């Protein structure tokens, strides 16, 4: 049996002062929690309200849905990369699997699209479970292995000999369930859900464990954290989000080829958006996806080669020099301004 005695039995040198400080710190903690609750509430509500109202002011719904899908993908990358440090270059694999699983659930089982999208998310998580051994790898080995896994999934799904199941390279058509309004609503739900998931992970014991693992896996295990299990949870959650995003894409576009949902640039975009906005933060991926995908849609479609160069440079610069992204930079600037103001008042 382990000792149940308290180390508090050792006399504290400043016991009386600690009692007073405890009351003050509890009040401080209360107001901090209120501020945090409000911040997190706004992080979900503001984007959801903006995107819910956006079609009344801007008619290009496909672009709006694409941005929401990329927000979700960037938040998914955020969970696996931002919290554990594992960069998933093959993240698109889960997106493609989600798109196909959703489509096949509609075509083969006549499930409603909303339910089929959930099936897509679940199947992607299942594939992530099969690919769990990849988590034994680290750094660039992991990044490249996920890329190889995504290519393997693409090769399987696009294989002509599987035509009777996946329709192979000839594309899939779920035009019979097309619903512009329906897919838009589900995209808004996906947007809110992905942000909410990041908040939930950040505020949970899982989030604390993942941050510890990212810092130092050895110290984390000596704090009682089961490194393999906690990392796997992040991997599965991240894969499920990509699967749901793929399902929303499938319902929106209704006719697509495997090359459209297993395109490596989808991974690159999601990673760049997350890095640019700030990994490990809630709003970073939202800001990254909205700003960069918006910019890309206006300028990049006509001259995509420049954007490939710019996005490549963003990955290098942000990974090396701005690991907390734009949100991190803003936070640092605000803190510095705050302490400068305090010093001037003092």
């Amino acid at each position: 049996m382990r000792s149940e005695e308290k180390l508090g039995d050792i006399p504290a040198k400043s016991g009386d002062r600690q009692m007073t400080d405890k009351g003050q710190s509890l009040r401080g903690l209360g107001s901090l929690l209120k501020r945090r609750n409000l911040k997190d509430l706004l992080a979900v509500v503001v984007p959801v309200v903006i995107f819910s109202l956006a079609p009344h002011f801007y008619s290009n719904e496909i672009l709006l849905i694409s941005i929401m899908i990329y927000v979700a993908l960037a938040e998914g990358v955020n969970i696996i990369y931002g919290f554990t440090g594992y960069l998933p270059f093959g993240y698109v694999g889960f997106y493609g699997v989600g798109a196909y699983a959703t489509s096949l659930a509609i075509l083969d089982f006549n499930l409603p699209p909303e339910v089929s999208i959930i099936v897509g998310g679940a199947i992607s998580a299942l594939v992530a479970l099969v690919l769990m051994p990849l988590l034994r790898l680290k750094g660039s080995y992991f990044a490249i292995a996920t890329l190889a896994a995504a290519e393997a999934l693409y090769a399987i799904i696009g294989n002509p000999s599987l035509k009777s199941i996946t329709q192979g390279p000839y594309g899939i058509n779920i035009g019979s369930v097309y619903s512009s309004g329906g897919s838009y609503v589900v995209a808004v739900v996906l947007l809110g859900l992905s942000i909410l998931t990041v908040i939930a992970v950040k505020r949970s014991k899982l989030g604390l464990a993942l941050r510890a693992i990212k810092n130092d896996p050895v110290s984390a295990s000596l704090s009682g954290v089961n490194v393999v299990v906690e990392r796997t949870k992040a991997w599965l959650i991240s894969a499920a989000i990509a699967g749901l995003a793929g399902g929303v894409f499938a319902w929106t576009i209704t006719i697509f080829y495997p090359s459209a949902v297993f395109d490596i640039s989808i991974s690159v975009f999601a990673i760049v958006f997350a890095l640019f906005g700030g990994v490990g933060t809630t709003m970073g991926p939202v800001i990254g996806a909205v700003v960069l995908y918006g910019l890309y849609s206006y300028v990049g479609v006509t001259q995509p080669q420049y954007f490939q160069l710019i996005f490549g440079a963003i990955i290098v610069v942000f990974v090396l020099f701005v690991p907390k992204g734009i949100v991190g930079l803003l936070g640092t600037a605000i803190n510095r301004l705050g302490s400068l103001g305090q010093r001037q008042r003092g």
Partner: protein
Amino acid sequence: MTLTNVLEVDGVVKSFGGFKALNGVSLKVSQGEIVGLVGPNGCGKTTLVNVVSGIYSCDGGSVRLGGKDVTHLPAHKRVLFGVNRTFQVPKPFKDMTVQENVELAWNFGGRHGSLRDSVLGTTGLEDLKDRVTSTLNTAQQKRLDLARALATNPQVLFVDELGAGLNPSELSDLAEMLRGISKLNVALIVVEHLMGFLEALTTRVVVLEAGKEIFEGNIKDAIRDKKVVEVFLGG
């Protein structure tokens, strides 16, 4: 009074390629005892700590904690059986606050204890609890390692060179803190090069050389032992 052995290491062997870092080391430690673990650099002290805490698996022998064989358990499970350690080079979670570091250990490794609110006071980190740990100096980071280990409510605690770089007054405070911890029935195995510090603190020392135990007993006897003198002074 019969004291229970909370840690029993029996004939542990650990090799790295052709090099035997531990060659049949055995060690027994009782509840609340303070034992010194000494030896020249490379003698296997830290390897032994790594093997007992589960960072390394051993190639032979066994490790028992509170009578339970934990030889094949991973580190996070051994923590739940009551073993923990600090590091020679401290390993705090650098982007977390001091409080979060301890909170994590309490949440995951200290379910059976109720130490969360007291370890920061005990280790003198109460005033620094909201500081991000990357801003702490090395001595403070070492104390944080200790606080985090204590938050898991250990029965056996390895303290790896916590006294390095401290002045005599700080060493005396550290010894007082460690004595206080041992009074709570936590067995301490203190890895240290500072013989004066160990003499003031420990009841016995174990001396390792080239992965083998060459002496076990009172530190005053150790200083007179021919083999120990040879190892430390080169014959």
